[in-house]
């Protein structure tokens, strides 16, 4: 296992003209490159050291940077995330992994009352340049406290940036941008897109990734499929559902445009409004709980900024407002899917 792909020791990998990575490896590569350039960057969290992260986000970092910069922590999010916030306020740039986003409950004070607000409270003199990376998402029957995405929960509270890549190229670029951002950035990664095998692998998340360092700017959505009749907005795994739906819709004579949010906060309102004004129809695909979330916000945006262009009421395909079930049958039934998007689009266009 090698992550050190930009040095000459690793001739096998760097000899390859194209190189495909999973999101997990792309994240790791970005972290390693930033750590080589800036000794104030450290990584901490549960099992991020020798194990390399339970979702393979830190493979090989311990071997390269050692225990002083890649630190395994006890199972106490309130302690180690609090510590990361303190480090970030005193000149370091910590990257801290919260294994599952669902665990935020025990450490939220450090995140939303301190990390998110300290820059404001200190009149800008004490920013908190930390990255909190955390796994999100269900679909593999892990129960209601290991399957949530909670985009809306973090997006609602001001002071934090929130990003979620749908593919390896964006994952590397967003991670580098997040590490170099002066604000706290919540870097979410969807478990089903990590290329871990046992969590399922979504083919489209594995992409060609440049070996050299680059950034994907935070705050820019991407139009990844052009269309004329309807706009499908997704983030993380739901981008892939939307793309699949767009292909099916094309066979039915419906031309769907697909937008990958990439960043939830700050939301790329310009890109969204441009597409909604063009197509006049909007479906947001969100694997978060349906109400009060990212889907709701984008629908509000459509009514505020694109009302006159709408040809029908916007819709959302999201998880209903109940905890995510453990039962595989129930969970599959409740999560967004391409079939649900196709059905919603056909209904919208028929009306």
């Amino acid at each position, binding site marked *: 296992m090698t992550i050190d792909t930009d040095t000459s020791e690793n001739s096998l*990998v760097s*000899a390859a003209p194209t190189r495909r*990575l*999973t999101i997990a490896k792309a994240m790791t590569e970005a972290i390693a490159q930033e750590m080589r350039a800036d000794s104030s960057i450290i990584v901490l969290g549960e099992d991020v050291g020798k194990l*390399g992260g339970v979702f393979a986000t830190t493979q090989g970092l311990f071997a390269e940077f050692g225990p002083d910069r890649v630190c395994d922590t006890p199972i106490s999010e309130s302690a180690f995330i609090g510590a990361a916030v303190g480090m970030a306020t005193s000149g370091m740039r910590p990257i801290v992994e919260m294994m599952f986003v669902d665990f935020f409950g025990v450490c939220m004070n450090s995140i939303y009352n301190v990390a998110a607000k300290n820059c404001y409270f200190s009149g800008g003199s004490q920013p908190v340049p930390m990255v909190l990376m955390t796994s999100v998402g269900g679909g593999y029957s892990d129960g209601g406290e290991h399957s949530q995405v909670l985009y809306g929960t973090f997006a609602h509270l001001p002071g934090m940036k929130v990003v979620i890549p749908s593919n390896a190229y964006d994952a590397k670029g967003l991670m580098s941008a997040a590490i170099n951002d002066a604000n706290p950035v919540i870097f979410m990664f969807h478990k089903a897109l990590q290329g871990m095998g046992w969590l399922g*692998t979504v083919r489209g998340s594995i992409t060609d990734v440049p070996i050299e360092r680059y950034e994907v700017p935070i705050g820019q959505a991407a139009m990844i499929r052009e269309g004329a009749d309807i706009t499908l907005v997704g983030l993380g795994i739901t981008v892939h559902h939307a793309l699949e739906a767009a292909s099916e819709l094309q066979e039915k004579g419906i031309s769907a445009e697909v937008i990958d949010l990439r960043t939830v906060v700050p939301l790329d309102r310009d890109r969204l409004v441009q597409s909604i004004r063009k197509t006049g129809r909007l479906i947001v695909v969100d694997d978060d709980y349906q109400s009060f979330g990212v889907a709701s916000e984008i629908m509000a945006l459509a009514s505020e900024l694109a009302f006159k262009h709408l040809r029908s009421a916007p819709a959302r395909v999201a998880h209903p407002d109940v905890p995510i079930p453990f039962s595989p049958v129930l969970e599959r039934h409740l999560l967004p899917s391409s079939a649900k998007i196709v059905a919603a689009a056909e209904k919208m266009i028929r009306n």
Partner: protein
Amino acid sequence: MDVKIPEGLWADDNEGIISTWLYADGDQIAEGAVVAELMVEKVTHDLVAEGSGILKICVSEESPVKPGMIVAKLK
């Protein structure tokens, strides 16, 4: 040409799995490209193509594998 899991990549008696194929059937592969990731006892290994050609996968994701096994062909 065969894509084979190198002998001695890990201790012979343990089974691993192919966690991810990074390419699909029919993709053009360049020599030296990492074509798959293998997982053995929670440790990830890269599987490197030792030649170039069009990929034909013989062993699917999640399937158990051992060192020495041919898991794909390059034509």
